[in-house]
């Protein structure tokens, strides 16, 4: 079965989504186990696939046995193998970590939640694994539709926020589709590798430039790249935490991957970086995204919303790093896909644990939380440090490569923006730490604080806290293995032509 890893990654969540849906009409109980099995299988296949790719190099998998470009193929190289592992493991772990929250938030409909969860994961995995430009669109829509449904359940604003996300998401996907159409009309092909072969004679054509632009705009909308980000903060922060802690780490990262894939494989660096003017413009746009994301985050009074703006800032890191156009920058960008996914998962799981007990993440309600939820707060500290970029957490190492890339490309504004957003992150997170750890809610005696008499620890259930702590520790472990991820995987993922 080992040569079927690429298909197993997707088949498992897809088939089990159906089984879960069917079983939901008979009993609530088996849904979680089935979902866990599906995502476990998927993660195991992804890891197996990565090992295979590392041993034998990139592979192509023909669906239905048809040779590309007639049929659809999976094209898996180091880049998507890595992202596959990240996405599948992340989805698996988020499921494990939020089970009590899911069961409580969705009650009767929890099995439907699991169904949509699996479909969403399948969609995202499909985007990563596919080698066909049109197929990517279909999977984009699966990921999006299930995402809308998952995000729609939340507070009073959630429906409207999700509807706005749906509008933006649909426009984004349609622009992508239009771009693919432009490529199709000019070349007649839809297969990514085939397109890369057919496009070079057309590099001067305005239609191909338009295709490139449309595809990029579509992807930028989907990844909430500033100033196309308006949908993200509300949609993510109004949703229930189990959904947002799945979608927030996954969607933006997968879309960054899609951008890298389109630029490197379909249009090839020769076209993507042909115009210095354009790539410089993209770096500047990323700089604006980083700075604005950070500033918006600063004005928030709610932790979850603040984190969504931090996420927008982080998208700027990855996009900017890629458009630096050199090896170091791209390494940083790809490494940050991995790191940011885990970091975001960590902080959003913290949000989940907090809302599970207090029901709110307003700064007001965080007062003195460290006594009530010490383990959650410990994880949040680690997550925050990773976001700031303190060694040895993983956030530091991707910033390391990104800054080196910026220096190498002579984009000092990018370096400055990175440093600036790190500084803002210090303010953001230490503000929370201060409120949670030192803000009193007991009595003050003179100018001496003696603490509340005996505040009972009332952290989220162990089944949530324990996986969260694993993720938090994972931030450090991942950091220590950054070097080997770069030398063993990412170095092969970037075309040799990019220095």
């Amino acid at each position, binding site marked *: 079965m080992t040569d079927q890893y690429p298909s197993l990654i997707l088949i498992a969540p897809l088939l089990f989504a159906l089984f879960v849906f069917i079983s939901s009409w008979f009993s609530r109980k088996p849904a979680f186990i089935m979902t866990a099995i599906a995502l476990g299988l998927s993660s195991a296949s992804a890891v197996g696939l990565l090992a295979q790719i590392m041993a034998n190099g990139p592979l192509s998998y023909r669906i239905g046995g048809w040779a590309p470009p007639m049929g659809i193929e999976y094209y898996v190289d180091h880049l998507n193998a890595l992202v596959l592992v990240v996405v599948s493991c992340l989805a698996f772990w988020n499921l494990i970590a939020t089970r009590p929250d899911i069961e409580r938030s969705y009650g009767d409909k929890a099995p439907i939640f699991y169904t949509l969860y699996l479909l969403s994961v399948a969609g995202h995995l499909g985007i990563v694994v596919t080698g066909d430009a*049109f197929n990517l669109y*279909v999977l984009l*829509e699966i990921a999006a*539709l299930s995402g*809308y*449904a998952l995000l*729609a359940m939340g507070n*009073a*604003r959630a*429906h*409207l926020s*999700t*509807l706005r996300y*749906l*509008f933006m998401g*649909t*426009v984004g996907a*349609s622009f992508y*589709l*239009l771009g693919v*159409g432009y490529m*199709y*009309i000019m070349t007649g092909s*839809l297969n990514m590798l085939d397109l890369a072969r057919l496009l070079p004679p057309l590099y001067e054509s305005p239609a191909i430039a338009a295709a490139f632009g449309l595809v990029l705009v579509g992807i930028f909308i989907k990844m909430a790249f500033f100033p196309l980000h308006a949908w993200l903060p509300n949609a993510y922060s109004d949703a229930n935490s189990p959904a947002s802690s799945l979608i927030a780490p996954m969607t933006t990262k997968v879309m960054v991957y899609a951008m890298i894939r389109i630029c490197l494989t379909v249009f090839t660096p020769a076209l993507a970086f042909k115009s210095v003017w354009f790539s410089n413009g993209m770096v500047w746009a990323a700089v604006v995204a980083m700075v604005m994301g950070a500033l918006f985050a600063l004005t928030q009074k709610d932790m979850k919303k603040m984190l969504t703006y931090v996420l927008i800032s982080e998208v700027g890191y990855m996009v900017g790093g890629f458009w630096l156009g050199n090896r170091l920058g791209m390494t940083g960008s790809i490494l940050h896909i991995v790191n940011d996914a885990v970091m975001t998962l960590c902080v959003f799981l913290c949000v989940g644990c907090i809302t599970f007990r207090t029901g709110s993440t307003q700064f007001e309600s965080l007062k003195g939380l460290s006594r009530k939820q010490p383990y959650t707060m410990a994880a949040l500290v680690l997550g925050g440090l990773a976001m700031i970029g303190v060694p040895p957490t993983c956030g530091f190492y991707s910033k390391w490569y990104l800054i080196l890339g910026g220096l190498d490309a002579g984009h000092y504004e990018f370096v400055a923006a990175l440093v600036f957003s790190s500084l803002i992150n210090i303010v953001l997170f230490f503000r929370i730490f201060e409120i949670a750890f030192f803000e009193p809610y007991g009595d003050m005696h003179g100018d001496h604080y003696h603490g509340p008499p005996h505040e009972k620890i009332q952290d989220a259930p162990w089944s949530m806290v324990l996986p969260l702590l694993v993720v938090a520790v994972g931030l450090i472990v991942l950091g220590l293995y950054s070097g080997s991820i770069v030398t063993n995987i990412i170095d092969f993922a970037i075309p040799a032509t990019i220095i």
Partner: protein
Amino acid sequence: MTEFLQTGLTAHYNYWIYIILMLIGLWAMMAKVNLIKKIIGMNIFQTAIILFYVSIGAKKGGTIPILEHAPGHGHEYIMDAALYINPLPHVLMLTAIVVSVATLGVALALALKTYREHKTLDEDEILSHLSE
């Protein structure tokens, strides 16, 4: 001018129609405040793209891409590529149509939920409700 009418207009008017339709849809989505109107705009927008794809498939002198029996009584088919239009865009657009229907369903569900909560579909009014 006549040359433009003959070549420029007739050669590319299919694309122009799709562009105009698309812009109408986009305009509705951006400028209208009624959620249902936005949804309709979204549908027009998607339909425009479908139109674009389908028009790629058109071929002068081609018929629908279903193989026709050759004259005579055998089970032979006429398989001349010039006689049939391009099947691929049709396949692709079947997908896109389905996607737009599915999106429409979910969008309506969300709009209904919003309506039930706020008793209005006017986005500005809803936002003012929410900020209260």
